[in-house]
Every structure is written in structure tokens, then in C-alpha cells.
């Protein structure tokens, strides 16, 4: 049945088979949850926001946990005041910063690039905006990601390495 649900989602079932699958899906609480879970998984894979209104988050999460190649969605944590939403606010300028593994997209919370004074009484100075582009460059250097910004003539690449 699980296979049928999966096929139904993918639009692979004939009309009559689909009717049967839908009938079972809607008449059975467990299958309904599975159906929802599959959609949630699909959305997670497509990186959409999970749909609101699921009745049993725990069971869905369990279903996801048992799926072998599934990306469990992470709950989006809003950027709290006092954080720089660096990847986010980088805006169009940072599109040039092409990430490698793990830096492909900037799916980060939207919001202004707020910098903050550091915790505690270390710095009582007013907040300022951090040059996000600079930070992204350093991310690329730190992780040694191949980056389009490094396309420079050989003569410019006089960096001394250890």
C-alpha cells in the first residue's frame, strides 16, 4: 500500500487504481498520516516550508526518520536581534559567491543585515552593519570552496601559502 501511495503522489496510477488508493488513504488514519508524511517529505526535498495543520507532528517526524534518504526539514529559526543574517542579506551581490558543498543556496532567513555589539559588557559600542560580502569571501576561503570570485589572472594570485 505504501508503494501505491507513493505512486499516487507521483501521478503514476491509473484512474481506477488511484481511486482505490485514495479510498484507502482517506479511510485509514495511519495511511492518511503516511500520505501527509510523504507530502512533507516531498516538500522538504524541494525545500518548501512544511505545511501547517498536521495533526500528529511526532508521528510524521517518525515516519520521516525511518525513510532512508530523506531530508528531515529543519524548523526555521528566525534570526534573533543581535545576529547578522549574513548569508541572507548578502543580497544580489553575494550571488557571485558560488558555494560548494553546503553553500549552494542562501536559504537563510530574510531580514536586514543586522550586526550587534557582542554579548556581555565587552562592547558597549553601537551596532553596525557587517560587510556581508566580506564574510562570505572568508567562508569560501575557510572551507576552500571553489568560487567564481577567484577567477583571476595568474599574476594576481601572488598569495603566499603555507
Amino acid at each position, binding site marked *: 500500500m505504501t508503494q501505491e501511495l507513493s505512486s499516487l503522489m507521483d501521478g503514476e496510477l491509473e484512474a481506477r487504481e488511484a481511486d482505490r488508493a485514495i479510498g484507502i488513504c482517506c479511510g485509514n488514519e495511519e495511511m492518511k498520516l503516511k500520505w501527509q508524511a510523504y507530502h512533507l517529505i516531498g516538500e522538504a526535498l524541494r*525545500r518548501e516550508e512544511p505545511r501547517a495543520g498536521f495533526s500528529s507532528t511526532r508521528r510524521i517526524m517518525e515516519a520521516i526518520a525511518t525513510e532512508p*534518504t530523506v*531530508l528531515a526539514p*529543519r524548523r*526555521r529559526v528566525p534570526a534573533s536581534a*543581535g*545576529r*547578522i*543574517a*549574513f*548569508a541572507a542579506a548578502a543580497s544580489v551581490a553575494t550571488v557571485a559567491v*558560488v*558555494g*560548494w*558543498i*553546503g*553553500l*549552494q*543556496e*542562501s*536559504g*537563510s532567513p530574510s531580514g536586514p543585515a543586522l*550586526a*550587534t*555589539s*557582542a*554579548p556581555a559588557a*565587552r*562592547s558597549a*559600542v*553601537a*551596532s*553596525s552593519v*557587517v*560587510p556581508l*560580502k*566580506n*564574510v562570505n*569571501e*572568508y*567562508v569560501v*576561503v*575557510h*572551507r*576552500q570552496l*571553489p568560487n*567564481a*570570485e*577567484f*577567477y*583571476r*589572472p*595568474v599574476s*594576481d*594570485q*601572488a*598569495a*603566499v*601559502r*603555507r
Partner: protein
Amino acid sequence: MRRLAVALPVAALLAALPAAANPGIDPLTWLERAAASARQSTYAGTVIHMQGERTATSRITHVFFSGSEHEKIESLDGPRREIVRRDDQMQCYFPDAKTIRIDRRVTAKFFPSLVGGPMEAIAENYRLALGNVERVLGQDCQWIHLDPKDALRYAQRLCAEVGSGLLLRAKTLGARQQVLEQYAFTDLRLGREVSRGEVKSTFLSQSKDWRRDVQPPDEPKPGSTGWAVASPPPGFRLVGEMQRLLPNRLQPVTQLVLSDGLATMSVFVEPMSNPARTAEATNEDGALSVFVRPMGEHLVTVLGEVPPAAAQQTGRSVGRQAVVAGAPVR
């Protein structure tokens, strides 16, 4: 007898690898085995990397022969690009720009080769324990737990395939045990299923006339940048120090690299272009923390797979290195 003849060379080969030793119940042995297996065995597979809210897939092919690691990493998302690595020498192919960047691995960590540092350093900074054996990719997989001894590093969960020791999964956990970053193989071929030819660049034949962007191999002696981290978090030691030229900087930027055996931090010091900056700033993205601190006419930026507190402590203790009789003081 025929069977024995086949089995013997295999046994000899396995005996030559630390990976083949029976790891028993010592988590440190498992860790050594995972490190050795990632370097010295042959494998190919698809890797999913989840960091913060992003996921990315890549295909990794790793072959070990003539005492060298040969590896190809193809990004499967976004613009086409590919790393071909022989030990620490990296060639990054950018087919769209017809460019090959020649670089040297310093801070880069490519799954499943996540355990790089000296084992003593790791044991000094993390509590090691064995977790459950789980079925992963159809194989028995032993979880290895690394829990930090202080709040200045993250916990790691590594899952090593019982037969080969190779890591099939890896997670970085935050203070509330939440997953900050993880890697997982979604398919894997091992040993003879992978041929040497597979590690050649996809772009080898068409890249003859591509631009080659070469990093000079000059290596300054440690301490030559004039900057030092006076009091990094316990267990973090300086493992690299260099000057880099970045595309948008006129002057070279100093990079200091610190490691506790598992986690790595980069400290960048650059002349400040905007002296009006006066505030410190902190941020984190997945397991990566960023701390920016203006310091007189310089700007210090710390990046690393560490909690923000560790990046802050490091950034706040950056200063000019004391020099006695012309020799750097360590």
C-alpha cells in the same frame, strides 16, 4: 587451495591497513580506523550535505594507489564544478569559466575524511564513546560519539561501517543536541567496484587550453605574519599561518588556522578599509560561527565549526606577536 590463494593477498592487504584491525570496543581505535579508511581505501558514492537550512549533493570518487589519495568531487547542484585532489594538491575545474584553480588543501574537509587531527588532541578535547550499531545503506554501522569536554566545541556523531571503518554518516550537534550539520552517503561502491579511471576529471580532455590559476607554493615560516592568538580556547593549536590575496582586497590578508584535532577555526586579519567600524558582531550558520572584531586599524574575522563563544574568545585574543631578538615567540 585456490580459494586460499585468493584469500591470502586480500588478508595481507587488509593486515597492512589499520582499518582492518579488529577495532574492538575502544572508540579511539574506531576513530583511527575511520580516518585511515577514508584516506587509504577506494570508494565512490553520492553524498548529501545538510548545513543550516541548506542541502547540497555531490558525487565523490576516492581511489588510493601508489601511496597517494586520488579524489574527485563533483557538485551535483548549481553551476558545474569539480575538485580533483591528489593528497593535498587540489585542482578545481570551472567549466563555465574555462578555468582550473590550483590550490592546496589547508582547512578543507571532504566527507568522509572528517577526522584529520592527531588522535591525542581529539582524545584530549572530547569524550569518546561507542554508540549503537545501526543498519545504514544496508550495512552494519557503528556510531562513535564525541562529546566536547567544554562548551567551546560541538559534539560529533560519526557512523563507521563495521567492515571497512569508512564513515557513512556524520552529524555535528549543538548544545541542545540539535543537528547543526550532517553528511550522509546515499549510495556507495567500495573497493574493486571502483576503477582508477573514475577519479580523472570529467573535463580532462577539454581543459587543455583552460586558464590555470596557480597559487604559488612559497611557504612562510610560522610566525611570519606577525599576528598571534594569545589565548585560544583550550586544546586549539596553531596549525597553519599564511598570507592570502583575495580578489577584492588590495593588501594581503593574514590567515591563522587553529585546530583542536577535529574542529578548525580560521582567523583573518586585514587592514580595515572602513575605520569607522567600532562594533563586534557574531553570527552562526549551521555549525559555522562567525565573529567580527575591529581592532585599531585592523579587522579580525574568525570563522569556524565551533560555538560562537569559541570564535569570540579567539577573536578577542588576537594581537601582535611578541618578538624577542628577531625570533617569533611561541
